[in-house]
Every structure is written in structure tokens, then in C-alpha cells.
């Protein structure tokens, strides 16, 4: 069609000369969209005609083609809209098209009906996949009032299949089920007894409420969410470095869930908290969600190769994007990275549209509050300023001092030097003229100085021969590597183009202070012997406030102080933020040379303005003081000690591993997903297949914050049918062991169909009605009869013996298994194996060793060894600080935890919507023989002894109660007593922790 239209179009252009003025997108599509598409579009296709997509419009409808390029007279479209017959004219309702619109349409068709196919066309033409249930609006269903809505819906389907629900489980089973489900821990025997004997008809509902109010609820359910976020405390990949402040996000999730933070806000903060409420530390911490996944240090930072960096960043963005879209919307967006999604109506362009949402987001450690940073910095500056003042006062009381700045200025150290004078780094001679970049300066050439008390100067750099620092040939063997360049001269006062003489609010150019500027790279050696000859004391002290006086908050400049070539003081990579740094170096009587050095970190000498303020040589022993001076000195000493103490313990700003926002770079569609094959630029957009929402999320110019805000709005819009369906299904999945949709992170065409679509929608709708309260949905689910059912498949014993009236009969069970072996219709509750973390927590709970401390940095049950790739060696957790709940474990991404991994704890490399449950011989070995399990068995036995005394029957009873929440039968008692008497209690406890009844919850 397109090919055929080209020559026609060309001819028409020549013929009528006005066709070039018609633009389909500008002139025609708006007419079609406004007046035609309501009946001839995605929702309605009257006459089987669609005018919202090129391919479909040109194909025509029931009556054949409606557009004949070049021939408006033969085009049904034109004939119908221009008809004067009211019954024939389109659109049937409202006013006819205007004369202008008609003219435009006619001209367009006559010019060849040029319709450049756009994404919208392609998307609109996209087949039936767009009708997939998950993209459609949520359907509200009104259940009858007389029953729990969940049960009404489930029973209808069960009955339709000839099935009924199983009877309600007994109370011991129910409290165990609920406690494990909501808290991830077993109930105490006392709680079991209290509930079993509670006569309150509302006892169950009250139990549900009590558990939902427990702080352990947040710990349990945060674990589920952290699975979905693939959270860990290290970067992963080859150099699996630590993220020491990632835990704040984990704590945020626990707190948010405990507080029942509305789910829409829960998501909004995690996606865009830092831009929605930049001054709220909690909102900033919430964005730890976006940063939770792995990060390749080698690919993103270490390698200098731009190709490798682009690839690593593309993978990084893919991880972030996939995490958010699968977690919140159950959309497997990652499948559209290299080509259009094979199953879902998601184009590759849409993938990059979403990628553009996160293009300005980097993972990284950051401060949680700019206000806190500012306040702390101000406080620290004030303390530092006072400290420097105190030090200066102190030095003044130490008697006559020799000022090295004065000496650099050509003076005798006692005030005869000239401010602004300096010493030339190449010649070692006095230098009055202002100089800039020292052309021709070479490193490691020591220049003897003619200045009084100055031995010489040198530009330092790392070299195999070392750096000579004195006229006697003293050498510093390993100065840092530098650029080998130098600036201006060593000066009394500021150097040329000095940024500021102030630091920590103290102006060192003011009276009473002096400044020795040692712009990198430079070193100067003073001759102490000569000074002594001139009257300086034998025993001296060098005191100064060293610092970075340039502009940069964080910098790579460093200073070093040597005495006779031995390093006595230094600070590396200091910037303006570091403030003034106290230098106090003892100069004993044999010491001859004092060397001060500054270096640039090897990256050039821009901004490397190191200075020594108040660089004085004072007597080591202060001279006799007047009484008033003594009092003053004591006061200064005390104040100095206080200040130093406070500064030493000065808090660092609170940090979190979360997101750092930047101006988004242009995002381009990458052909075949290859970063080296960029195509056109893509603006931030979301999925067009989701009905009821506009996909546009901004423009090419939108800031990172605008993009993420728009995206957070899109995700949490009440009109988004995915977000609410996905979360209620996740809750259902965790409560029942399988979701209504069995693929909790894939609601697309490749995922499973909902077993009860109307129930899914009712719950999703109820979430909105309950103002996005997750606890409300928990309460609904847990109080249903479906949730309270028995889980046993074998009820025939009870039926045969007459126990438990109302139990399913043998034939009913057999029938149910025949009809619905996988229990999709929920004719019974699903039993569940404890997940790895719950199992570990339960062992600790039963042994009495669980440390219930909440929040804070994760416990580290490993030895850490600093290496190129750090080494994490796991140890047996055998102290209270390591007996915290598993959710507080410092999770190492690459070195997975052997004990937990064996028990099916997934690797945080993966997004985990559902835990695998496997049964293996290695699990048996681990539960039997792992050092942790054996030690805990011992503690369990100790606890039983402490509770029940030495009588074996009482011990057995207590052990069963603690492990299973029930008393042993007489048969079990006999066998267990025999084991205790024949062997020991620890052996019994070890086996109880290995029992099926312990690891399976009914």
C-alpha cells in the first residue's frame, strides 16, 4: 500500500501543489480520533472498521476498503462523512465535520492518503493480546451480604465442580498456622493453650488482630518484599563489596508494613521518595528499593573502557526497571529489551520508554537529609574554629615562637618576614614575583635555599631513587605519586590565585595569625640546627593547623610532615569539608631537619591549595608563667580536651544505600539491546496496553524527578488495574502457598490465568475501598472459612473412628484429589514447609535463644577479609548478637549462606516472587549435623531442663510443647522417654527439630 502510494503522492504533489501542506499527524489523525475512533477503534469496531491504526484503517471494514488513495470520490470514508443524507452521514451523532475538516480529508486522500505508520498505529493494530484480562479495568462485584465474600466466591466454584470445603482446623492448628503465616515464628505453648481454651466467639478474629499488631508482622512480611526487591547488603558480581548502610531500607520496609502504610504511598516512596519529599529522611531511605539489586563495580567504575561501562550500565538499568515492573505490575518488561515482547503487547520502544524513567537514577551511598548534613557541618565548623583558636592561644602562652611562615617570607621567624614573599621551587631562591604554572619544573631535584633557616626545596614525586629533601642527602623513599607539576612558589601568605585564607570560619590572614602556603606539589625543609644557633630552644614542638584552602569540598590533595626524613604526620585526600587539622610534632634536640610537603594525588595541580596556618616552632617546655597565665593555660587545656573529645566522636551524617539523582542522559532505543547500536531517542513512557491510563510520562527534557513522579503516579493510579491485582495476589500467594494467579510476577499472556478472576478483582477493589490498607486484606483473607480449613489429605481415620464430625469422607477426599489434585479450587488448606529463614528463627525461638532486637545494622555471621574481591567466611552463629531474626542478616550476594541456601533460601541475584521448596538429602544432613543446629539442640535441652526439671516424662512433655505446640501422645511419650533415658535430652531435642511436624505447618 505504502509503495503503491508513493508515485501517486508524487504526482499529486506536482499536480495540485498543496498536498505538501497536509500532514497526517497534524491534520488528519485529530479528526479521526475526535470524531471516528469512539465507534471505530480499540473499544468498538462498528462495521468491523477501525480508524485508529494505519494497517486496520487501510484494510477497511465489512464493506471493503474505505480509503482509496488518490481518489476521494471512490473512498467510502469521504463519501460517508461528506454525505448530505442525515441517515448516511458520519458521524451519526453530533455535528457533521466542519468544512475545513472535510477539505483536509479530501485533500489528504487525493494526495495519496499518506499515513506514516507511528508507534501508536502499531500499538493500536496490535491484535487480541491487548484484550488480555490483566490489562482491563478491575470489575467490581457485589457479593451477598450474609457470608464472607471470599467464601461465597470460592464455594460457588467448588460447588460447580462438585466439591465442598474441608472442615475448620482445630485451634492448635489454627494458631500455629496464623502465627507462622503472619509472624514467621511459632506460637509459645502458653499462647496455644490460651487460644485453645478461649471461649470468646470472637477469639479467632481477636487473634488475627493481635498478630497483625505484633512488630514481628513487619519482620515476616518485609522478608517477602525483600525477596521481590532482591535486596542484599553487598554489591554482588566479582568484587562483592559491602553496602554498610543498605539496612536502613530494610528497616524502612519493616516499619512501613508495621504501620500499615497505604500500599500506594508505600510504592510511591520507594520509586520517588527522594524527589517527592526531599527533606523527609524516611522518603529518601525508601528509595533503597530502586538500589536494592546488584551493581557491578568492575564494569561501572573500575574499568576505563567506555564500551564495558555502557554495557554494565545498560544491565544495571535493566535490573532496576525489571525489578520495579515485575514487583509492582507483574509485567515481564525485560523480555522487550532486545525485540518486541514475544508474548505481551509490549514494544521494544516501550521498554526504552520505561528505561528513560530511570535514566537519571544511579545506585549509591548518600546522605538521607541535606538538613542534617548542613547542621552537622555547621556545628563541626564551629567546634573546629574554636579549637584552632584555643591552640593559637596556647601556643602564644608557650613563650617566644619561631614562625615558619615568617621565615618563608625572608624573616628571622620573629616577625621580620614580608607577607607575600616566597621561595622559588626551582631555584630555592626568594621569589617576590607572582608566578603561575611552573613551566620547566621537574620533580625530585632538590634546590638548596639561600633563605635564612631554610635548607632547601623540592617538587616531590614517587621514584625508585626516592626524593631528596635535605642538603645532606636525606631521602624520602616513598612519597605519593604526583603529577610532578608545581604552582607559583612556597609563600608567606596566600599563593597566586589563592581561593580563600579562611577555614572553619577563621581568617588566617587576620592579625595574630600567619599562613604558610604550600600549593602542591612542593616540599620545604627547615634547618632546625641553624634556628637553635639563632636562639631557638633545643627541645621544640612544631604546631600548626594544616588544611585545604581551595574551593573543592572533597579533593585529592595531601600533606606530610617529616622530621629528618621520617614521616611524623600526614593527611591524605583532604578537601574543604575536612576543615583545619591539628598538627603537633615533637622536635627533640638531635632533630635537624623539619620537612613540610604537599602533593596533588597525581591528577594534576588544579585547586590543590594546601596551607599550614600558624606554623610555629614553640618550646617543648613552656617558660615560667605568671599565675594568671597558668590559670589561663589550664583553662585552655581543659577546653581543648573537651573540643577534641567532641570532635573525635563527632557524628557522621546518616547514610543509606539508595539512589542518587542526576540529569537523565538521552535514552536511545538499542537495536537488539546492544548499547553499541543506538537508534532514535526515546522519551519517558509507560505501557500503552494498560487500559485507562495515558502512557506518556514526560518529554525528552523532563528531569529525573519529574519522570519518576509521573511514573509513580502511573503505577499507583486507581485506574491502573495491574498494581492492585498484583499485590492482593501476592498476599493471597503467601497466605495460601499459591496465588489466584500462580505466577505472581507475571500477569502477562505467558503467566497463568487467575483461578478466580472475580475474587481477584473483588480483593483489588476492596484494597482501594480500604484506602490501600494491606492489613485490611490480610484480615479479610485470614478470617475466611477457606483459610481456616483443615489441610490434611487424609481424614478417613477421623471419619472411620467417628472423630471430627463433618470431616471429608474418604470418598470425598479421593474425589477432590481426582477433580483438583493441585487444590486450585481450595477444597483444603495447603500445608507449607517452613522457608529457610522461618526455620532458623523457629529453631532459635524454640531453644529460647532468639534475640528479638529489632532494626539496625545486620548481624554478620561471617569473618570478613579485605581483598580485591572481599572474602566472607561464614561462622557458626553462637552468640546473642547473631541470634537475631534472619531478616536482619547481613546478606552477602555472591557468597551465599550455606545453611540457609541448602534450605531453599534463594540467591539475592534473582527477583524471587515465589520460593522454591525442595526436599533433599543435603537438607537432612544440614538439619542433623550443622554446628548451629547441634548447639541449638543443646540450648533447647537446657531450656527444657530449666522448665521441667529432671523427670524425663515432664521433659518430654515440655519439649513437645515447645517444638510442636502440643502434648505428646502416650505412645510418643514412651518412645521419647526411652530415647532420653537411653541417650540424652539433647538427642531428643535434635530430632524434634528435624521432625516433619516441626518443619511443616498444617
Amino acid at each position: 500500500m505504502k509503495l503503491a502510494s508513493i508515485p501517486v503522492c508524487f504526482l499529486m504533489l506536482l499536480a495540485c501543489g498543496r498536498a505538501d501542506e497536509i500532514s497526517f499527524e497534524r491534520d488528519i489523525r485529530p479528526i479521526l480520533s475526535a470524531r471516528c475512533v469512539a465507534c471505530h477503534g480499540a473499544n468498538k469496531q462498528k462495521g468491523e472498521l477501525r480508524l485508529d491504526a494505519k494497517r486496520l484503517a487501510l484494510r477497511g471494514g465489512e464493506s471493503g476498503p474505505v480509503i482509496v488513495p488518490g481518489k476521494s470520490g471512490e473512498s467510502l470514508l469521504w463519501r460517508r462523512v461528506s454525505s448530505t443524507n442525515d441517515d448516511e452521514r458520519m458521524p451519526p451523532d453530533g455535528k457533521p465535520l466542519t468544512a475545513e475538516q472535510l477539505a483536509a480529508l479530501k485533500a489528504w486522500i487525493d494526495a495519496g492518503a499518506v499515513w506514516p505508520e507511528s508507534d501508536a498505529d502499531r500499538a493500536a493494530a496490535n491484535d487480541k493480546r491487548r484484550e488480555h484480562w490483566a490489562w482491563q479495568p478491575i470489575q467490581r462485584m457485589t457479593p451477598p451480604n450474609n457470608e464472607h465474600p471470599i467464601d461465597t466466591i470460592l464455594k460457588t466454584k467448588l460447588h460447580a465442580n462438585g466439591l465442598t470445603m474441608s472442615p475448620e482446623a482445630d485451634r492448635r492448628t489454627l494458631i500455629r498456622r496464623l502465627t507462622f503465616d503472619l509472624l514467621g515464628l511459632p506460637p509459645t505453648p502458653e499462647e496455644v493453650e490460651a487460644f485453645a481454651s478461649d471461649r470468646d466467639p470472637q477469639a479467632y478474629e481477636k487473634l488475627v488482630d493481635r498478630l497483625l499488631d505484633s512488630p514481628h508482622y513487619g519482620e515476616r512480611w518485609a522478608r517477602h518484599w525483600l525477596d521481590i526487591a532482591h535486596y542484599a547488603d553487598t554489591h554482588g558480581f566479582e568484587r562483592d563489596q559491602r553496602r554498610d548502610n543498605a539496612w536502613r531500607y530494610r528497616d524502612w520496609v519493616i516499619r512501613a508494613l508495621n504501620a500499615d502504610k497505604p500500599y500506594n504511598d508505600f510504592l510511591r516512596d520507594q520509586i520517588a521518595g527522594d524527589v517527592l519529599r526531599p527533606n523527609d529522611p524516611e522518603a529518601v531511605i525508601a528509595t533503597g528499593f530502586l538500589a536494592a539489586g546488584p551493581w557491578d563495580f568492575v564494569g561501572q567504575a573500575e574499568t576505563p573502557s567506555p564500551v564495558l561501562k555502557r554495557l554494565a550500565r545498560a544491565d544495571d538499568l535493566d535490573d532496576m526497571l525489571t525489578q520495579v515492573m515485575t514487583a509492582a505490575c507483574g509485567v515481564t518488561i525485560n523480555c522487550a529489551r532486545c525485540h518486541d515482547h514475544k508474548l505481551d503487547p509490549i514494544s521494544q520502544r516501550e521498554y526504552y520508554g520505561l528505561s528513560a524513567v530511570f535514566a537519571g537514577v544511579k545506585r549509591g551511598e548518600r546522605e538521607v537529609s541535606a538538613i542534617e548534613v548542613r547542621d552537622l557541618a555547621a556545628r563541626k565548623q564551629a567546634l573546629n574554629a574554636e579549637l584552632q583558636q584555643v591552640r593559637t592561644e596556647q601556643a602564644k602562652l608557650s613563650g617566644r615562637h619561631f614562625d615558619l611562615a615568617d621565615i618563608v617570607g625572608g624573616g628571622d621567624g620573629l616577625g621580620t618576614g614580608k607577607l607575600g614573599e616566597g621561595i622559588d621551587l626551582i631555584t630555592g631562591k626568594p621569589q617576590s614575583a607572582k608566578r603561575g604554572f611552573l613551566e620547566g619544573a621537574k620533580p625530585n631535584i632538590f634546590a638548596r635555599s639561600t633563605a635564612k633557616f631554610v635548607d632547601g626545596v623540592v617538587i616531590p614525586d614517587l621514584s625508585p631513587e626516592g626524593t631528596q629533601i635535605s642538603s645532606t642527602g636525606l631521602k624520602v623513599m616513598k612519597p605519593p605519586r604526583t603529577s610532578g607539576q608545581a604552582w607559583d612558589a612556597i609563600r608567606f601568605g596566600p599563593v597566586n590565585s589563592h581561593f580563600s585564607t579562611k577555614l572553619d570560619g577563621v581568617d588566617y590572614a587576620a592579625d595574630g595569625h600567619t599562613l604558610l602556603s604550600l600549593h602542591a606539589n612542593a616540599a620545604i625543609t627547615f634547618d632546625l640546627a641553624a634556628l637553635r644557633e639563632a636562639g631557638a630552644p633545643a627541645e621544640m614542638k612544631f604546631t600548626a593547623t594544616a588544611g585545604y584552602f581551595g574551593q573543592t569540598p572533597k579533593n585529592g590533595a595531601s600533606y606530610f610532615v617529616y622530621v629528618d626524613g621520617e614521616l611524623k604526620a600526614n593527611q591524605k585526600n583532604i578537601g574543604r569539608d575536612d576543615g583545619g587539622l591539628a598538627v603537633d610534632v615533637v622536635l627533640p634536640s638531635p632533630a635537624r631537619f623539619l620537612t613540610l610537603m604537599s602533593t596533588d594525588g597525581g591528577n594534576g595541580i588544579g585547586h590543590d591549595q594546601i596551607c599550614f596556618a600558624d606554623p610555629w616552632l614553640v618550646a617543648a617546655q613552656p617558660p615560667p608563667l605568671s599565675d594568671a597565665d597558668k590559670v589561663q593555660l589550664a583553662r585552655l587545656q581543659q577546653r581543648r580536651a573537651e573540643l577534641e573529645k567532641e570532635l573525635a566522636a563527632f557524628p557522621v551524617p546518616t547514610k543509606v544505600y539508595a539512589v542518587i539523582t542526576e540529569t537523565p542522559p538521552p535514552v536511545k532505543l538499542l537495536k537488539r539491546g546492544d548499547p553499541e547500536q543506538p537508534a532514535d531517542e526515546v522519551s519517558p513512557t509507560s505501557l500503552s496496553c494498560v487500559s485507562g491510563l495515558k502512557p506518556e510520562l514526560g518529554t525528552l527534557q523532563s528531569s529525573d524527578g519529574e519522570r519518576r513522579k509521573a511514573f509513580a503516579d502511573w503505577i499507583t493510579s486507581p485506574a491502573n488495574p495491574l498494581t492492585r491485582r498484583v499485590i492482593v495476589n501476592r498476599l493471597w500467594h503467601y497466605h495460601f502457598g499459591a496465588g489466584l494467579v500462580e505466577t505472581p510476577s507475571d500477569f502477562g499472556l505467558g503467566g497463568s490465568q487467575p483461578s478466580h478472576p472475580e475474587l481477584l478483582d473483588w480483593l483489588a477493589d476492596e484494597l482501594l475501598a480500604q484506602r490501600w490498607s494491606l492489613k485490611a486484606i490480610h484480615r479479610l483473607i485470614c478470617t475466611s472459612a477457606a483459610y481456616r480449613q483443615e489441610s490434611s489429605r487424609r481424614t478417613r481415620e477421623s471419619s472411620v473412628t467417628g472423630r471430627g464430625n463433618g470431616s471429608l469422607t474418604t470418598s470425598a477426599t479421593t474425589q477432590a484429589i481426582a477433580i483438583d489434585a493441585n487444590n486450585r479450587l481450595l477444597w483444603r488448606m495447603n500445608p507449607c514447609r517452613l522457608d529457610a529463614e522461618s526455620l532458623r528463627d523457629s529453631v532459635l525461638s524454640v531453644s529460647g535463644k532468639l534475640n528479638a532486637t529489632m532494626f539496625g545494622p545486620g548481624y554478620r555471621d561471617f569473618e570478613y577479609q579485605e581483598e580485591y574481591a572481599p572474602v566472607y567466611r561464614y561462622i557458626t552463629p553462637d552468640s546473642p548478637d547473631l541470634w537475631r531474626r534472619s531478616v536482619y542478616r547481613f546478606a552477602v550476594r555472591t557468597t551465599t549462606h550455606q545453611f540457609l541456601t541448602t534450605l531453599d533460601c534463594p540467591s539475592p541475584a534473582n527477583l524471587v516472587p515465589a520460593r522454591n521448596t525442595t526436599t533433599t538429602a543435603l537438607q537432612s544432613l544440614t538439619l542433623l549435623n550443622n554446628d548451629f543446629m547441634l548447639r541449638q539442640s543443646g540450648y533447647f535441652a537446657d531450656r527444657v531442663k530449666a522448665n521441667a526439671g529432671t523427670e524425663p516424662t515432664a521433659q518430654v512433655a515440655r519439649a513437645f510443647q515447645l517444638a510442636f505446640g502440643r502434648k505428646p501422645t502416650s505412645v510418643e511419650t514412651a518412645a521419647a522417654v526411652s530415647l532420653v533415658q537411653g541417650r540424652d535430652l539433647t538427642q531428643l531435642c535434635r530430632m524434634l527439630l528435624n521432625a516433619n511436624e516441626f518443619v511443616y505447618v498444617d
Partner: protein
Amino acid sequence: MWTDYRSKSDRSRSRETSGIRENTELSGVRLHQSRRQFLWDLGGGFGSVALASLLHGDRLLAAEPMSSKNPLASRKAHFAAKATNVVQIFCPGGLSHVDTWDYRPELERRHGEAFDAELGKQTFAGVGGNYAKSFWKFRQHGECGRWLSDLFPRLASHVGEMAFIHSMQSKSALHGPAMFMANSGFIRPGFPSMGAWVTYGLGSESENLPAFVVLPDTRGLPPGGLANWAAGFLPAVHQGTVIETSAERPPIADLFPPADRSVSPDAERDGREFLRTLNVAHADRRGDSLLEARIAAYELAARLQMSAPEAVDLSGESAATLKPYELDDPDVGPFGRQCLLARRLVERGVRFVQIFCGAENTSSKKIRPNWDSHEDIVRDHGYWGRVLDTGASALIADLKQRGLLDSTLIICTSEFGRQPFMQGSQKGRDHNPGVFTAWLAGGGIRGGTSYGTSDDLGWHAAENPSYSYDLHATALHLLGLDHEQLSFYHNGIARRLTDVHGHVIRDILA
């Protein structure tokens, strides 16, 4: 009474459980009891019930659906297999093809010329250098006349068994991602490793040992760590089980209680018996095959306690067998032991054995702990070359002598190669994902052949460029598996080891 609670057969069986006692006496040493007796004692209860699992996501996979009872039950291949077992030797760090397997005469001619400076910036370290010919002399060997460098004098005598893929490439120049690609087909972590896919597709041949065993270097784990043999989203039962390579430690973690917490054999027996009875009664009340499977898993665990120490006990090996492995050599010995263990494991039905010839990079070692020879290739490749040459040649000869080579596929690879030029002024070479060599030998392989080439300088792949996809597709093919059919649904996609790529390299098949 408790005893009345059990069935008659249970009671009769409990008298025969002395096997446990003997078993627990071994504590890492030796077992005197016959295997058959032991199995009889422990295997009876649930008869054919072995492992079971509640599997999420297991939809369509191998030729035969996964048994609901035993995910490791031996499964039919898609078609007739040429090999039943795999030994993969992985040389982490980046083995330099131009100094070893891939003879590039043009490189000798260009020796000393400078490599393009701009292109040099794109390498991992970001500096080019001068072209450098191989640090070891190349010679032709065997009837096939394959060229091999003098770094591998012993393997040279096996070139007639080996088939080389000279056009391997990687999608990453970084150790971690490239390791993941070589092992799982993806440069990101989280995907199942080749060994996991193979056991997922074929199940286990052995009832007493894990199907997929990993033998790490004694110096530590390779770059990327455990992720290299992870099951990813496949059920955990398919992940590689690490068998301790050093003789001093128990072969499998938690195989026995730690020495300072040992349990007496009698107590162990009574405890296990109590546990079994408790579990049987519980399963009886509940009627769930999952519970029975868990009981069976404890029985399997007991069998593993016997078979694992036996598998790593080398005392029965003849002096003639041991000699070529040079176990007593402090440098070469540990890898020799890994190779010998691999042979013993294959003999005992372990499906997939992965050996690592090298560990993670650490800064503190004098000689690099793997093949990552940035600063001194003669020092590091010189060291590791002798290690690989000794162990791998001994393994090939040993398997061949026992008639196992025909059914065992040996794969030797690295995550990438090294550059044909020096890294700046260093005496080593930088990473080269553009081309490297892998070789295969044994089951179904036509020895003395090669496939693909690098360009004249060994810088990029030239003829028939290949990726791990092709190597994996070929290996799966030899095992009777179609790499396009072996898939597992995960988060929206039926995932494969070979992603959406992969061709069986038929040129090197027998």
C-alpha cells in the same frame, strides 16, 4: 505401647538398622560394611520413594516430565546420547590462547610492533602495548599435526583425543560476568549453570551421590563464587554440591557433626530411629507424599554419609594410577587430586563434575591465584600451565585406560582469552573477550580436529565465531539433549541455557 504403633514390617526392619551404627563410626575415615547391606537397611521403608519436591514452575522441560516423587530420578534424553557424564575443567582468570592452544605465526612476525593506541583504550585495563609472540614455542604434535605450545608437554601427547574451538568469544571482558556467561549463558548472575541444566534434563545416575559435583581450587572459590554452579531459578536440588578437595576435611559440608560435637553411634542410631517413627506416624495421620519424601531424604542422607567418604578415599588406588597425578607435588598435587576425584566420581555415576583450575583474584599472593596474568605471564601461566598439563593429561589417560573416556565428555575452557599485545609496559597480557580457545575430548568428540579460527593475530574471532551458547549446545547434544527444548519457565520466559542462540558444532563430533 509405642512399638504397637508401628507396622509389623517397620518393627522387623528396626532390628536391622545396625548399618547406621557402622556408618556413623566412619567419621570421615572408612566404612567396612557392604553397600548392599546398608541400602537394604535404610532404603526399605518407603521403597521406591526417593527425593520429592514441591516444585514451582516446573512446566515443560526435558524429554520426560519430572517425577513428582524424585526430581533427580534418571530421565530419558531427547535422543540417543554419545556421552553420559561430563567433566568440565574451568581455568578462571583468562587463559591466554596465543601462548597455549592457538598458534598465530603472524604474531611472531609482528612481535614488537605497537598495537593501535585508540583500540587499546577499550580494553579492560585501558592500555594497549606491543604485539608479543607466544612466550612458549609452538610445535606440531601427533598424527593430526595440531600445534600446541611447550607449556603443555603432556597434553601434547593427547592432541589426537582433543577437539579445539578456536573462535570462542565472550560478551564481557570482566571476570564476574564472563564467568557467569561461560557457566550459565548470561552475563548477569541468577541463571542456572550448565551442570544444573544437565542434571535437570537427565537426572542422576547415582542414588548415593549428588548428580552435580563441584571441586573448587584449594586456594578458594573462583571469581563470582558460588553463583558459578548455582541452580538459579531451577529447584535447589540441581545446584552443584561442593566436595571438599582437601583430604583433611569431610567431603561434604555437614556430612557429619563437627568433631567437637560428635554424637556416639548408638545415640545416632536411636535418635534416627525415633525420628523415623515420629515422622512415619505423622505422615500416616496426614497422608501427604511430601512428608514421605522427606522421610526418604533422611534415608538418602544416610547413604550419602557412606558413599561420599568412600568416593574421596584414594587408598585403594594403585601406585601406577596415582603416579601421573603427582599428588605429592605441592604445586601440582591439589589439582591432580581434583582430577583423580573427578574420575572416581564419574565412575560412581556422578553426572556432571566441574573442576576449577584456579581461584579468585587476591592481591596478597606472589603468584596470581588464577590465570589472570596481567603483569607477568611467564610467572603465572608458567605456574598454572604445569598444573593444568599434569592433572588434565593424567585424567584423560586414566579415563581412557578404564574405558570411561568414550562415555565421558571432557570440556576445558576459560571465561575469555588474553590479548596478543602486552598490557602497556607490563610483562603480561590484558583480558581478551574477542577470541579464545576451548577444547573438548572424550564421549562423542572427534579428536585431532578444530573449529573456527581467530584472526591472524589472535585478537578477534575470524572464521565461525562462537559463544558459550555453541559450546553448551554441543555439550547438551552429546548428552542427548536438544538445547532448544531444554527449558524452564521463569518470570515470563521459557528460559534456556543457550538463551535464544546456540548451534551444535557438528564439525568436531565423531
